[in-house]
């Protein structure tokens, strides 16, 4: 717990700015249930409803399913994070 968070990108000032900046990027969405969804973030709204493309479902870190487009209702979302991992290797 050292530092004061100075490394946060200069373009990201508020959570809303972050959400705007990550559209079209590969993301990991973790739900309250602990299940991860990885895919390309198509769009999201103020309720944290999320539309994703090339969605992959990970349970306990293991790939369980692949879907095309997915809609996640915002109340289930614990966090959204960007990922460096390249997606769609199997596509």
């Amino acid at each position, binding site marked *: 717990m050292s530092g004061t968070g100075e490394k946060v990108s200069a373009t990201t000032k508020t959570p809303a700015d972050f959400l705007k900046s990550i559209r079209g990027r590969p993301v990991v969405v973790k*739900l309250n*249930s602990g299940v991860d*969804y990885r895919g390309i973030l*198509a*769009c*999201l*709204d103020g309720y944290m*409803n*999320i*539309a994703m*493309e*090339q*969605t992959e479902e990970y349970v306990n870190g293991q790939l369980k399913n*692949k*879907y*095309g*487009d*997915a*809609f*996640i*209702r915002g*109340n*289930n979302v614990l966090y959204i994070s960007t990922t460096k991992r390249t997606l769609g290797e199997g*596509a």
Partner: protein
Amino acid sequence: MGSEEESAVKEPLDLIRLSLDERIYVKLRHDRELRGKLHAYDQHLNMILGDVEEIVTSVEIDDETYEEIVRVCLNFMDFLLLLFSFKFLFIIFIHEHIRE
């Protein structure tokens, strides 16, 4: 990708709008899944589905052998009004758009 349909998705609910009259896959909590044709929805994601297949999966552990027993129960319904509640509605996959 980059089709006309996708450019029409400006907010997440557009994805649902584009799925009207298509078969969708809804994943609910407690290992319940629904597949059906989306007839109507509202902003809360209450939905009316037609020609519905409900899949309920439960895993029990045998007391003696500790084996996992997976039970799958299938229900079929002509019409279903799915009311949103925090307990149930989970995630929706647009079935028709599934890519290999």
